[in-house]
């Protein structure tokens, strides 16, 4: 019988200023950036960065909860291939991520709408905030 390696997923909620520091720790632990995604839940952005270990099958997720108008720094300086994930997040949800190494400026998918996955009221509030 083959050995089953199934550690529980870990979810760590962190402050947005801690993101780079924690990501650096993941990099030092030789974890692979597995995915990054944004969600918009109860009027706040939730950015999830998941890291996986290919040997032990650990799966750690860093979750940043931030306000609508907050900005977070890009992790592409640590994990260069996060480019696609971060461009996708900004394009679909309109969250602000600064200093992405290759910034497509919301033209990764080239969709007509801006931030299509945001609920309508959030989009309107955002527009007014920008005015």
């Amino acid at each position, binding site marked *: 019988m083959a050995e089953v390696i199934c550690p529980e997923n870990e979810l760590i909620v962190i402050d947005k200023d801690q993101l780079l520091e924690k990501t650096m720790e993941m990099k030092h632990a030789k974890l692979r950036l597995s995915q990054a995604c944004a969600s918009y839940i109860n009027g706040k952005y939730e950015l999830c960065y998941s890291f996986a270990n290919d040997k032990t099958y650990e799966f750690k997720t860093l979750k940043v909860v931030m306000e609508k108008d907050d900005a977070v720094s890009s992790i592409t300086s640590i994990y260069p291939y996060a480019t696609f994930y971060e461009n996708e997040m900004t394009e679909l949800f309109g969250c602000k991520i600064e200093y992405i190494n290759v910034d497509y400026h919301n033209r990764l*998918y*080239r*969709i*007509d*709408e801006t931030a*299509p996955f945001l609920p309508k009221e959030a989009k309107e509030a955002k527009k007014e905030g920008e005015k």
Partner: protein
Amino acid sequence: MGKVKKSPWLLHYDASSCNGCDIEVLACLTPVYDVERFGVVSTDDPMQADILLITGGVNSQSEAVVRQLYEQMPRPKVVVAVGVCACTGGVFKDCYNIKGGVDTVIPVDVYVPGCAARPQSIIDGVIKAVEIFQKRSDEHDAYEREHRHDGQVPAETSGKGNQ
């Protein structure tokens, strides 16, 4: 269908399909279903294609591509919408980025339903398209014979419609 007079060429494009219908279109071309026995040949060049098989609904990115492919095809041409997404938008109809079926952008002649469309129904659709193509190309030839005065009369059953 009766005697095959023409041998139309097929062009396939994936507008925003889920791959299901694409793969079935490809499966039609392989020996198990072998749509080529009806005289059609798959091509990848829109300039030489007569029948356009489109899978998937149209979104804002692929709209221009679909229109361009249709423009590039020589006349007469036939469009087959393969799968329920290409017919009406299907399960993705409510998605924000889907404009609807292929007929919102270009005229469609044959609708093949199914999710994913079975190879048998795709073959049925292609046969219908071949018949329509034959009729159109006959009309086209007749028109050419009537209106051209340079002495070069197209033959009754030339391989392809004159452009």
